[in-house]
């Protein structure tokens, strides 16, 4: 029986590496491992620093998630010091988070994931007249003339023919797992390019509320801006109008481009329902309408769904030492009892590498094989991210989410179980984006109403001075980042950071095995995936990209002896 091993390995060091290996037998994946290949030592940098400064460091962990790390950081300090923030600050943080989600999700689909579904070279053969009539039949988006599509086609053709394949160089063009007709491929390529124009606009919301973008400013106790509707130098009506116009533009783009595209594409892939993987889904919840301490007020519901049982949602307590724990039995960290799980407040970051000397052909999954720890909830592996949030909200009976899900599944003539797949994960992200644009409109109205009622407070300075802090305190800050549940746990001693642990969404999803040999989400999602052509593992990339991994990867294809057959680099 022919067994091969596929490796997806590291390329860049910007956001940390991921390496994935899959064992292939008879064109089907029978086992997989997922490994973080770069040690993440932000915890070590933070020790001994002022807790109020931590956000500025964690913001730099990753260039994609600057907002979410900063937010989780100020929230953990506020939790430790029992600081309540003003209503305006809560709304503004929610607006920034929703804007980040819309930007990140839309960018992810068009710029990082679309070409796993859309074949660029096939699009060059399309009839633009037919693409135009398809576009007009699914959306009111005005850019839909045959000339528009013809121009795009010509431009891409010239770019490709001049040898500057560049942005389009990393594709398995012509692969049998591509299922769209050329005309729909052209539609996808056109909107891939259109998304670039659009994505520059939504982030301007961050510049308004955070003073600048990239790397907006944050503050423990509120938001670092003043509000006065008539003052030129602060948040005034003119800037708020700019925010409103960006929200409206985003909503139009998502309603008229993203959602119709996803549904059109999904219609051709609705029989490819592999890639579901784990059957446990977790959301910490986010977007408090009152306070972060009142989960019942969250617009993104909190909870856990086990075994895909949508009739029951379990509660989570991030402070309970027995619920969230990290395991290092297959990770390169020193720990007295390698089998024990540690709650993040007790977490340690002591590297102890005993893997093969790089560059290596393959990792040994029976030993330590990752810099990523294995986080578990009550010992169970969890998927986090858009699909998890949608599943939890659906199981909780959230009306708006349920309607979005049911409407789109009805259009595709698919049952709700179809969500548990690579396609479902991608659909869930799009539906969540649509929900966020609705939420943005509501949050903006809330903010204006609150300001007009006379409340311009944005900062609670009561406990800013360390004189007013207890000598020891501990807190947890969380948010739902675009990629999933993000938690920061802090211990403060004598005004300084004594311990700081982050458990990031990709740590949950890219987790290695634990002491009980349970797979993490990436590993589980690859198993049983059929490969049309193992030399070009398009299906693996599609599944891994459907999680929106915060990493960069390269694909290597190995035969059973570990000899490299092909190398394909992918980028994130």
């Amino acid at each position, binding site marked *: 029986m022919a067994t091969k091993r596929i490796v997806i390995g590291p*390329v*860049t*060091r*910007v*956001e940390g590496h991921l390496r994935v290996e899959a064992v292939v037998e008879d064109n089907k994946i029978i086992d997989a491992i997922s490994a973080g290949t770069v*040690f*993440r*030592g*932000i915890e*070590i*940098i933070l020790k001994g620093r002022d807790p109020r400064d931590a956000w500025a*460091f964690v913001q*730099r*962990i*990753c*260039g*994609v998630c*600057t907002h979410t790390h900063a937010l989780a950081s100020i929230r953990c300090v506020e939790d430790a010091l029992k600081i309540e923030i003003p209503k305006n600050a809560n709304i503004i943080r929610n607006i920034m988070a929703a804007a980040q989600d819309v930007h990140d999700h839309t*960018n992810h689909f068009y*710029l990082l994931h679309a070409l796993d579904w859309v074949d660029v070279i096939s699009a060059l053969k399309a009839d633009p007249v037919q693409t135009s009539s398809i576009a007009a039949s699914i959306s009111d988006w005005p850019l839909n003339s045959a000339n528009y599509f013809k121009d795009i086609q010509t*431009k891409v053709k010239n*770019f490709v023919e001049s040898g*500057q*394949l*560049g*942005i389009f*160089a*990393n594709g398995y063009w012509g692969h049998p797992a591509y299922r769209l007709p050329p005309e729909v491929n052209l539609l996808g390529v056109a909107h891939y*390019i259109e998304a*670039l124009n659009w*994505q*520059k606009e939504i*982030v301007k919301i961050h510049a308004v509320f955070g003073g600048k*973008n*990239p*790397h907006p400013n944050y503050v423990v106790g509120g938001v670092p801006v003043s509000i006065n509707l008539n003052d030129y130098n602060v948040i005034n009506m003119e800037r708020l109008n700019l925010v409103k116009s960006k929200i409206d533009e985003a909503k139009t783009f998502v309603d008229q481009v993203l959602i119709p595209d996803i549904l059109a594409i999904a219609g051709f892939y609705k029989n490819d329902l592999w890639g579901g993987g784990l059957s446990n889904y977790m959301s910490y919840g986010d977007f408090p309408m009152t306070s972060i301490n009142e989960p019942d007020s969250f617009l993104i519901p909190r909870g856990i769904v086990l075994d895909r049982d949508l009739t029951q949602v379990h509660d989570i307590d991030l402070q309970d030492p027995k619920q969230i724990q990290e395991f290092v039995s297959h990770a390169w960290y020193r720990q007295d009892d390698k089998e024990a799980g540690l709650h993040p407040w007790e977490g340690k970051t002591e590297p102890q590498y005993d893997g093969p000397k790089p560059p290596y052909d393959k990792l040994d999954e029976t030993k330590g094989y990752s810099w990523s720890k294995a986080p578990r909830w009550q010992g169970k592996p969890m998927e986090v991210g858009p699909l998890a949030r949608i599943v939890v909200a659906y199981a909780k009976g959230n009306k708006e989410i349920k309607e979005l899900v049911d409407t789109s599944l009805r259009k595709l003539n698919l049952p709700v179980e179809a969500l548990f797949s690579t396609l479902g994960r991608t659909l869930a992200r799009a539906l969540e984006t649509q929900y966020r644009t609705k939420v943005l409109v509501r949050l903006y109205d809330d903010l204006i109403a609150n300001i007009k009622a006379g409340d311009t407070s944005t900062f609670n300075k009561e406990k800013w001075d360390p004189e007013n802090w207890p000598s020891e305190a501990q807190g947890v800050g969380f948010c739902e980042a675009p990629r999933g549940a993000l938690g920061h746990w802090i211990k403060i001693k004598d005004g300084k950071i004594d311990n700081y642990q982050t458990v990031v969404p990709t740590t949950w999803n890219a987790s290695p095995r634990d002491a009980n040999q349970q797979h993490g989400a990436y590993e589980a999602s690859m198993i049983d995936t059929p490969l049309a052509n193992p030399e070009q593992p398009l299906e693996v990339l599609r599944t891994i990209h459907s999680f929106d991994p915060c990493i*960069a990867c390269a694909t290597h294809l190995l035969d059973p002896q570990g000899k490299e057959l092909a190398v394909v*680099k992918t*980028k*994130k």
Partner: protein
Amino acid sequence: MSIYHGIKILGIGNLVRRDEGVGVHLLRALENTLPPEIELLDGGTTGLNLLEFVENAQKLIVLDAVEAGENPGEVVVWRKEQVPYFIATKMSVHQLGFAEVLNWAKFREKYPEDIVVIGVQPQCLDWGTELSEPVQQALPAALKEISLILEEWGVTSAGSK
């Protein structure tokens, strides 16, 4: 319109990965030393978010840590077509993100008319906020290269308040 209009300087890199952040360290050293029309941006590792800044530049200086095969602390200057705008051999550690930005600017026909990369060969990319000694010592040489380029573009007050 000022002759400085359209000149932009972009520092990229990861500030918590020691020498990775040298581009941002250089950018910070330039703050408040140049005519205000010259726009500076700390791009971090934010990738495509930088597209608009790049497309709005007529003349662009990019400051970055680069894998140039030189000794740590060596300063390299890449001009125009030497700048790797497509993903071929990886030279800068941010190239996958930033090369894509340049690539899109080219595709969209909004590529700066002049572009210069001033890079420093890193020694240490571990977690940490301080530069390694050879890279720290290279900062004056890199700042000198920046002022030479700016002089060439007609900026005379470079390096002084």
